[in-house]
């Protein structure tokens, strides 16, 4: 996640506004009343659908009863958190999330960089645009379709892949109902769906690399590989570092829909992550307070990780995101 224009937040022209005399500001507000009319619907949206739920977090410190509401429910302090942290499930969820996150960072993260570098080396702009059009396509389909396609290709009986295996005389592999294959399938799906789309940001960074550097490298006798190594890669180093740090900041954020769709009774043990657990205990079993506590744990850790990552990015000499 890169927030553009974030730095322009501080660059606004209203810095001096606070020190101006009141009547002037009031006059400006009245003069700009239509702007506030334009602002109001959006502000209301954020208040109702983003900030009101934050208030709802208090139920994780209660034994929330739907018919009693937040004001009438009994307060229990940190009881739900204590229960969650002493539950075996906590470690299972942490392990499952970590495995998927590490696989994602090791196998998925470098791929868009590699593909972007390769696209950047193409001589023909037309061919490049054609390939880009194709590799972006999977990004636009839903996770349901991606998982559906995987089911069509990898199911045990009808799946093409297993039919091929059988024809070649191998045993069929139960890709979809297997604990061992679950993380592999999840990672492969992410790679297939998002690698192409992930190249966009690196292509933009590549476009900003100074062309004259290539000229001088070539005069110094550098071949294509050396140019890539000594000019191109250093040119996008900043982008790579910042995206990598931010990815670390989103460690707990497994792609929830995908996992929800891939998890079944056979692989639940390795497939459950915090979000799916919140859904099962909260919406399915109606333990609102307990699952809200689990959700809060995830949100807080996520917030801390992102802030740390941002700090790290700034420390490594990059601009940071906010």
């Amino acid at each position, binding site marked *: 996640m*890169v927030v*553009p224009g974030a730095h322009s937040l501080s660059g606004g022209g209203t810095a001096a506004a606070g020190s101006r005399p009141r009547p002037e500001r009031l006059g400006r507000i009245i003069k700009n009343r*239509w702007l*506030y009319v334009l602002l109001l619907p*959006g502000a209301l949206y954020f208040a109702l659908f983003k900030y009101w739920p934050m208030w709802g977090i208090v139920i994780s410190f209660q034994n929330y009863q739907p018919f009693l509401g937040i004001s009438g429910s009994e307060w229990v302090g940190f009881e739900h958190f204590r229960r969650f942290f002493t539950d075996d499930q906590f470690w299972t969820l942490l392990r499952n999330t970590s495995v998927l996150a590490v696989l994602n960072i090791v196998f998925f993260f470098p791929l868009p960089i590699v593909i972007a570098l390769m696209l950047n080396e193409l001589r023909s702009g037309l061919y490049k645009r054609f390939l880009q059009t*194709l590799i972006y*396509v999977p990004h636009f389909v839903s996770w349901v379709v991606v998982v559906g396609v995987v089911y069509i290709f990898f199911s045990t009986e009808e799946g093409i892949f297993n039919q091929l295996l059988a024809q070649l005389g191998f045993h069929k592999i139960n890709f979809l109902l297997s604990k061992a294959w679950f993380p592999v399938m999840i990672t492969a799906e992410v790679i297939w769906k998002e690698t192409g789309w992930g190249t966009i940001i690196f292509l933009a960074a590549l476009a900003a690399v100074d062309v004259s550097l290539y000229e001088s490298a070539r005069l110094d006798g550098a071949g294509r590989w050396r140019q890539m190594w000594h000019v191109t890669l250093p040119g996008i180093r900043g982008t790579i570092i910042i995206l990598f740090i931010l990815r670390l900041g989103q460690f707990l954020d497994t792609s929830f829909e995908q996992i929800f769709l891939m998890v079944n009774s056979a692989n639940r043990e390795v497939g459950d992550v915090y979000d799916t657990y919140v859904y099962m205990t909260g919406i399915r079993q109606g333990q609102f307070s307990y699952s*809200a506590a689990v959700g809060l744990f995830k949100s807080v850790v996520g917030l801390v990780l992102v802030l740390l990552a941002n700090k790290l990015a700034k420390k490594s000499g990059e601009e940071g995101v906010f």
Partner: protein
Amino acid sequence: MVQDKRWGSRLFDGINAALLLLVSTVAVIPFLYIIAASFTAREELLQKTFVLFPTKFSLEGYRYIFSNDLIVRSIGVSIYITVLGTLLNLLFTSTMAYALARRDLDGRKPIMLLILFTMLFSGGMIPTYLVIRDMGMLNSLWSLMIPVLISPFNLIVLRSFFQSLPGELEEAAKIDGCKDLGILFKIVLPLSMPAMATFALFYSVTHWNSYFQAVLYINDSKLWPVQVWLRQIVIVAEGGFGDAQYNDTNTAPPAQIVKMAVIVASTLPILVVYPFLQKHFAKGALLGSVKG
């Protein structure tokens, strides 16, 4: 770049171009196969494992899904939430972004910080669910549109886009007696069509692909968007969920063909729109990703 005519360089180019062709083929070939196979007669599908160019055509998969009222209805539901939802998205996002883009708006700094904060922290699934429930939106299509009216990310990108427009235009319009509303709708928005097209694509893809919100908020199968049916037919019917609601009757075509037909019917609308907007969104996505 000056042409490099050394053979090593040419070899490099050749291998690179070929590898990339392979990569992009991998990206789209599953779709090509599924589209082709969904139109293939069942005999041919049984004989060959992999069909890209069917010789015997058949529409039985499509005939089957389009004879199912609930599926046809769900496609209607998806079109409805995509069109109406996207219009609402664009209206709410652009008005708020425009107000926040104006430097003479008092209090925009704290408001921007509040918006930014929602990208870092949220109430989470359960409190949000309870809010939607308390508002009486459960089992209503509004629950798929209203809670996602404004994407904070899109809002911030659009705001910085508005800020990059020349301020003289607004000055001139004001001198001509144009009010803020007029400036937005008559001058700023018409100038922002490529950006708006990008956001229209992003928002509509989100609506069309919306799945989990429907699972959370909608129990009535008559109001399910097409993605929920897709999951019922393609995934549940296959695996170990144990709560399959989909029954194959004896007269039904092979499940595999039905699955592929649903995938095509639920994906094609997006894939048809995509090439038309591609030119814009590449620019728009760049606008979003590297400003600086």
